[in-house]
């Protein structure tokens, strides 16, 4: 199954930007109780995302998606992050998602977009 292709497993086993920031400007956490997934995003933000870390636990899809997303969004501003969609996540993962796994893959994006909303205008 291509959902467990090499790149996804690589990000799951060796997550990028995993851990914590010293003085993050935003911390946002979101869980998916049905699966027991949990993602925390810590962000340094000025005009755009300067630095980002994630932590949490979950299935390979949610963790790999979070790892890839942190790489993708560095340097992006608020509007650009808000524009990201499920389609972008699928392109990023390089696979289409079955209905039961959409939630896993889009949870990290949800957390990130919530973080952007929480920013003062």
């Amino acid at each position, binding site marked *: 199954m291509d959902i467990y292709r090499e790149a996804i497993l690589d990000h799951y086993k060796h997550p990028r930007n995993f851990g914590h920031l010293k003085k993050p400007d935003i911390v946002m956490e979101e869980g998916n109780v049905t699966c027991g997934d949990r993602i925390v995003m810590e962000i340094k933000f000025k005009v755009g995302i300067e630095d980002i870390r994630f932590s949490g636990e979950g*299935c390979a899809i949610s963790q790999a998606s979070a790892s890839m997303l942190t790489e993708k969004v560095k340097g992006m501003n608020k509007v650009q992050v808000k524009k990201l969609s499920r389609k972008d996540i699928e392109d990023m993962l390089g696979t289409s998602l079955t209905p039961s796994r959409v939630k896993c893959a889009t949870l990290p994006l949800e957390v990130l977009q919530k973080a952007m909303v929480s920013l003062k205008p």
Partner: protein
Amino acid sequence: MIDVRRDFPQLRRRIKGKPLVYLDSAATSLKPRQVIKKEQEYYTRYCANVFRGIYRTSEEATEEFENARTKVAAFIGAKESSEVIFTRNTSESINLVASSMKKTDEVVVTIMEHHSNFVPWQQLAKLKVWKLGEDGRLDIGELETLITRKTRLLAITAVSNVLGTISPIRHICRIVKKINPNCLVLVDAAQAAPHMKINVQDWGVDFVAFSSHKMLGPTGVGVLWGRRELLEQLPPYQYGGEMIKEVHVDRTIFADLPHKFEAGTPHIAGVIGLGAAVDYLQFLGMGAVRKHEIEITDYALNALKSVKGVTMYGPPHSKDRGGVIAFTLKGIHAHDIAQLLDEDNVCIRAGHHCAMPLHEYLKIPATARASFYVYTTRQDIDALVIGLEKIKKIFQ
């Protein structure tokens, strides 16, 4: 037990050229052709509404419908068939009883209840929770402090849908009644009725709920059994057609049991199909059904023990548990396990199996669950083990 697999059409299905390995019978069982045929018989030979028509097909349908009630009553050892109420599922059966509770009524539930035997009480009464011992079993000694003279009802599962733990219902009920003779006992038998001989009178309980679809019958039909005098006291659960004797502009006289609780046209085909499922199980013999379950569970417990990294939950011995095994695989989330097993058509469940309080209590976010029934073979278990080893390699 005799080989039943040829009776289950779905087991002949090939997906991507490979056979189906169905290990999710605790969620719903597959259906034998005898049940499918019986349901079809209603739709093709005597499709008519029940209790109304003064014509042959309606009378046939009514007779088949009521025959199913008699069969279910005999299957669970009920004193009379009018104590058997047909509902939509186990959840509705429990809601029917719970709806008569007051917010101040104290209800005791166990931590391993399915949400269907947890949420209704939580919403409609005052909840007290019976925790589990180290070995995944209930400590009977706790009853002395849990059940008080104020306790209105104990709601307890006969077999846990996650841990497989079998509760000694008869023993528990005796102790409860000794402490407080007025405390009612409701048993969730959704995982018990399909797998072992149950006798509601021998248990000494007041209400028993279970579902047709987990015991080879159609979906959309549940059963509530209750002691006659209690059912007579309970108010109707829903109002409308078929649950009345007389209706006047200013008042209504409700029907007698069981129809008082069966408002509206019921799932006629489903109930008749359930009757056929009961026939099928009686033909196999519930002793043989349980024996097969113990054998296959024993085999699975040993087979999964051989897979490094697997942690299993629930009592260690097959005789203390039903045919369900929840497990985790080190470093791999249950969803990933389920999805990768699906590659080889191995169907298991992943998540919290509608028992979130239990998973919180065990401090695990999710488990994978394999569950068995009369058609489960050792080859099915072997396929699961091979699949798990394959997944471990992928995640290495």
